[in-house]
């Protein structure tokens, strides 16, 4: 049903005319967006935030799962898992609140920096720090939880294969590379495609919560722009067009990544 509303993207929407009687303006909304001075900056902000985020946060759950699988004592492993899952259950608002508290000029993080002889900075208002803050807190919050799928997969590692490798003189890194990584490789591929497919829709609620007027030069991404235009400024048609543009890029990226993965993974995509 909401998809019918995509017609808005091609209209000069007014509340009086509604969806069906507002003037049809074709691709004008798209032209306006592509030629606006904000366009390049918005697109780059969105892409940089999501691509860096993917590159930094994707490998960590895999490493964590591999480390966990080598902990021999079951009870200890369970306890570690329980702790690393915890941040996943904390809300975006609370994480944002914690970041504002920790990173404020008088917060504990700046105190440590000052003790070490550094200069205090308000990280929450600094455009240069936004991506680092966003990505690092994202890893803190989700790495543990994201490792579950790999942990579950690693339970299927063929123990006979490991024993045989040990007898053949494979060291621990060779074992991990040749046996464990190979076992979880299909899962890594699926997770990567899913993550890449969501690249333009990245953590919108969190970006919005972390936005301050001063860090907008890097924190304004297409989804938050759509929100501001549409709901705060009431420019319905234009906002819908920008959102549609975002979805289309997202689908193109999804298909492209799937093709690339298929190519390097012997014809196995999703």
């Amino acid at each position, binding site marked *: 049903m*909401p*998809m*019918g*509303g*995509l017609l*808005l993207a091609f209209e000069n929407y007014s509340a009086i005319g509604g969806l069906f009687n507002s003037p049809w303006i074709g691709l004008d909304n798209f032209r306006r967006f592509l030629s606006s001075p904000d366009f390049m900056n918005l697109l780059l902000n969105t892409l940089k935030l999501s691509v860096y985020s993917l590159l930094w946060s994707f490998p960590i759950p895999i490493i*964590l799962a591999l*480390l*966990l699988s*080598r*902990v021999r004592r079951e009870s200890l492993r*369970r306890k570690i*898992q*329980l*702790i*690393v*899952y*915890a*941040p996943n*259950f*904390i*809300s*975006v*608002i*609370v994480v*944002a*609140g*914690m970041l*504002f*508290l*920790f990173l404020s000029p008088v917060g*504990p993080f700046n105190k440590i920096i000052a003790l070490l002889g550094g200069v205090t900075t308000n990280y929450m208002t600094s455009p240069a720090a936004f991506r680092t803050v966003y990505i690092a807190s994202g890893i*803190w919050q989700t790495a*543990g939880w994201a490792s579950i*799928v790999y*942990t*579950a*997969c690693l*339970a299927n590692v063929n123990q006979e294969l490991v024993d045989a490798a*040990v007898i053949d*003189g494979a*060291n*621990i*890194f060779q074992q991990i590379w040749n046996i464990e990584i190979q076992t979880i490789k299909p*899962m890594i591929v*699926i997770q990567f495609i899913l993550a890449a497919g969501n690249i333009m829709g990245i953590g*919108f*609620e969190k970006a*919005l919560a972390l936005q301050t007027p001063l860090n907008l030069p890097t924190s304004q991404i297409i*989804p938050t722009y*759509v929100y501001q235009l*549409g*709901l705060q400024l009431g420019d*319905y048609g234009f*906002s*819908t067009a920008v*959102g549609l543009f975002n*979805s289309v890029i997202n*689908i193109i990226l*999804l298909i492209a990544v799937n093709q690339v993965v298929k190519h390097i993974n012997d014809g196995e995509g999703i």
Partner: protein
Amino acid sequence: MMEKEYKEDDSMTKKKLSKVDAIFEKSNIVLLVLFVLVIIIPLIYVLIASLMDPVTLSNKGISLDFSKWTVDGYKRVFKDNMLLIGFRNSVFYSVTFTVISVGVTLLAAYPLSLTGFVGKKFFNTIFIITMFFGGGLMPTYLLIDKLHMLNTVWAIILPGAVNVWNIILARTYYKGISKELREAAKVDGANDIQYFFKILMPICKPIIAVLVLYQFVAQWNSYFDAMIYLKSADLQPLQLVIRSILVQNIPRPGMIADIQNAAAMAKISELLKYSTIVISSLPLIIMYPFFQKYFEKGMMAGSVKG
């Protein structure tokens, strides 16, 4: 002669290997301990900061001198009834949303898991399209408006209730159950409805537990839908109430009514933020360990290709 040499060689590599292994084992534990510390230190800091006199905290940092500890923050947070209203609303939204959403998911996944179901392909395609392509923010907003759901609880409970990813999870789980079970039930005279409720559901407990947890957590922690769809103060969920305290930096008037001095106010509002974080996060932090045994099972069901 040859044999002996080989044996010596073998024992040498073994020794070397176990050394590498031992180093690995130690660094493994060190890395994991580091990881756990990074995760847990901010949480413990928040907990202690919420219990400490804010002036001492800002001058000296964390101290274990219990005379400097206080529950003032918690007392003040509970003085304001907005937080309690938010709490009550969030419980209501999360419980209702979870019941409706998990119910719909379990029912929708059932026909999709059967081999002979007519139109299966059609429904599958429809569901999957919505996973990757939606109307976008404004069209969805206008739809909610036209359905007269703006500023009602339905705007929070209904739009997200059908979650395609969860339907795929449930469907995959059903598919893992042997077909003979349904056939045997049919032979014994059970119809589909009896089979579904009396036989299938009891053996699907792990997946139901995971879905309940997912949906409850998602609803409890979300704020965006409530922010755009709800206007009345008495409908606001907890996350919106704490958003104004934590992110927008506006303490609730009821919590700080007695404070005049601006410097003291700044300190108290910091203490209030820490206490608010603890109170709002506590329910889920207490709840999730009970579901731990189902995590792996539930996550795996979804990873098997749909």
